[in-house]
């Protein structure tokens, strides 16, 4: 994979990720419409898109390991940043369009409505990840960067919970998202256990070798 080709793929990924936003904007401007409850339609579309993007970033590592397509890792940053972008738009829609900057009721929501608390927490945790997404930050932080960016697992879980907690009774979609998240995490836990076992074996072999 040449740098140029990867650049092209990144640009295409960026464009693809902007489709939901462009679609919303065209619907808001008369091409089609946003239905009887436009604010909710925008709010839900932005939220769902961000959750999708966050989960897609978690697909990259398993996909890369299983297929050997190592260049995929080059897409992770752009996908993560776009996920964050959609989360911000989602939160802004809620604060500005839905609640009309009613800070008092927003405060009550964030502190007393668990699904909003979880969503808000997820948004906050994404900020340090977005800020340290540059190459230089990655170099500067070294091993700490890897640890910090493991927060994405917690963020994804908060996202799925935030979505699940507001559903009235039809939990089919939250169940789907939960299963996807569990599979993605299960893959990692399994890989980690395998590595640990291999390491133990290697250490035991080393010990045996030393004892000879």
């Amino acid at each position, binding site marked *: 994979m040449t740098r140029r080709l990867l650049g092209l793929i990144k640009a295409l990924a960026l464009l693809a990720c902007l489709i939901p936003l462009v679609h919303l904007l065209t619907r808001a401007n008369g091409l089609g419409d946003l239905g009887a409850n436009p604010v*909710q339609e925008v709010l839900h579309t932005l939220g769902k898109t961000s959750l999708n993007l966050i989960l897609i970033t978690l697909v990259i590592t398993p996909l890369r390991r299983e297929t050997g397509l190592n260049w995929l890792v080059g897409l992770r940053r752009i996908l993560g940043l776009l996920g964050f972008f959609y989360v911000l738009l989602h939160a802004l829609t809620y604060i500005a*369009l839905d609640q009309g900057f009613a800070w008092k009721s927003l405060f009550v929501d964030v502190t007393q409505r668990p699904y909003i608390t979880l969503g808000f927490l997820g948004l906050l945790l994404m900020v340090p990840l977005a800020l340290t997404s540059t190459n230089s930050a990655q170099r500067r932080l070294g091993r700490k960067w890897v640890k910090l960016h493991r927060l994405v697992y917690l963020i994804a879980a908060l996202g799925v919970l935030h979505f699940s907690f507001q559903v009235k009774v039809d939990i089919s979609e939250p169940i789907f998202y939960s299963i996807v998240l569990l599979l993605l995490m299960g893959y990692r836990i399994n890989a980690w256990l395998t590595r640990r076992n291999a390491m133990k074996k290697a250490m035991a072999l080393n010990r045996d070798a030393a004892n000879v």
Partner: protein
Amino acid sequence: MMLIKRPQDIKASEITPESTFRQRRMLLKTALAMGLIKTADSSAQEDLIPLNQKASGNREQPFPGDGRLSDLKSWPSAVNSEPTSFEDVTGYNNYYEFGTGKTDPASNAHTLEPHPWTVTVEGEAEKTGTFALEDIIKGHTLEERIYRFRCVEAWSMVVPWVGFPLGDLLKRFKPTSQAKYVQFFTLNDSDQMPGVRYPVLRWPYREGLTIAEAMHPLTLLTVGLYGQVLPNQNGAPLRLIVPWKYGFKSIKSIVRIRFMDEQPQTSWNMANAREYGFYSNVNPDASHPRWSQATERVLGGSLFSARVPTLLFNGYSEEVSSLYANLNLVTNY
């Protein structure tokens, strides 16, 4: 000499001041319009005969062929805002028997067959049995009533419903003194309703009211909206509208009515008792455990429309608060 009653015979204190006289006239007019007082012709319905006791098996069409409901009695509207557009009223619905998405009912409800339709009446009443829809409706004067409609999900609309007071029908079944509650059931037919194959709620959908709520003149047995018969997705051919309660209390496509001496089960209460109580009166001060009920979003607005404050009893306090005089509305949500 003719005996003429002399004006002096009436003490000045006995003369009704004109303002009071006019107030009384207004009150009478309003009460009449609201159906609080029965006029002679409003009980002109025939005796209800169950289908199996009727000589002819032929079923009549309950509504005109073109679905237009005309000669509607008007009703003094207490709603200041414009009715929500027909597209939004019929395109944004919660009717889980046809799917849980807001536009699912409009897409899927064409499979519902609202004719021929029967309603089975059972329980604590003298007259029970299975009745034809046309017999139930016949003799009742249809009214157009513009009501606010507030969903528990904190959105609302304004709808010109067509129907008649539920109490007028219930009286014809002669409920006994044991009838303290009324339960209602929606049709439960997987051939007509794809959604009932999924156990999202306990089917058939069921709802209930106290007998006082059911008999309240605002409680409307509804057969139409916007001057035409109910579209399937809005609960054809017969539904309830209880304007001071959250929308899910206003059960759709009713096939069974049961008079009971104890509080009936209701679908949403069975699904989650902490979140959906039996009363479910609209109340801005009683939050849903997961979201606020203080404000609502009026359907049909733009991206920049603000939410509006929710009113106690959805703005019908004056009419219905006496029903709950001794009830804590927050604990009895």
